[in-house]
């Protein structure tokens, strides 16, 4: 994983920069969604990983926009997390075929 890489993602008119999310954290979020956890727990989990990925200042701004209702859970899950994971995976090399 290239930690220096940054992805710019626009959420309702404002662009934010995110660093790649570790695969283990992506798996945890996927598991949370798959295990039918409450939306509150999913947002809490996303906060853990996206705060690290965006940095404190940007995450504070995103949180403020959530508090005012400008951003909802869908914006965090689909517009940020899903897009970030898709772009991250696009950049990852495909696994090599098994060696003979």
């Amino acid at each position, binding site marked *: 994983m290239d930690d220096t890489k940054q992805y710019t993602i626009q959420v309702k008119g404002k662009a934010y920069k995110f660093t790649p999310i570790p695969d283990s954290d992506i798996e945890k979020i996927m*598991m949370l969604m*798959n*295990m*039918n*956890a*409450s939306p509150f*727990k999913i947002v809490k*989990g996303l906060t853990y990983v996206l705060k690290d990925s965006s940095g404190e200042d940007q995450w504070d701004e995103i949180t403020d926009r959530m508090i005012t209702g400008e951003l909802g859970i869908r914006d965090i899950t689909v517009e940020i997390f899903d897009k970030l994971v898709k772009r991250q995976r696009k950049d990852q090399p495909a696994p090599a075929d098994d060696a003979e």
Partner: protein
Amino acid sequence: MTLSNPALSRARVRVSVCGLAYTIPWQPAGAWIDQVDNLSTLASRFAAPEIRDRLADRLWHYPETAAELRAESLRLVSEATGRRWWEAVRLMKTSVQHEMLGRLVLAGVDPWERSIGEWCAATYATCVKGADQKERLKFDFRMSVPPVGHEDAWDDDGDDPAAIEASLAGLFGTN
């Protein structure tokens, strides 16, 4: 009352994930089939909301949570059906194919009344109905092969090697 055949049971099932012990209520076959694509998290999906929340918290604090949840979920499938989990899943998936579902419905088997064990048994019986011994052996063999990544789970359950050899000989027509 304790039943010797778990497929007939309507009792709650005990689950334990990372030290969190809880029970999940009996679910009709329809509920299991509805979740067949979410097998690895069944032990959470069938749990009460407050248990799901506690499992979600554990996911962040105990790295082994995901693996334990997966293992318990697969164990649940085996326990509820009295079969290896992959055999049960194959039967569940077979049961909802149009023709098979039609046969089961015409036979009066209601997925919202029956246990998943009973539903799988009815599906199996429908699959092998009218099959000769060789066809039945082939069907059983195909069912018993574990999915990729779970080959180690394929043990012989202490089967008699001579009986296995005779079965395989019958299956492949070498006797």
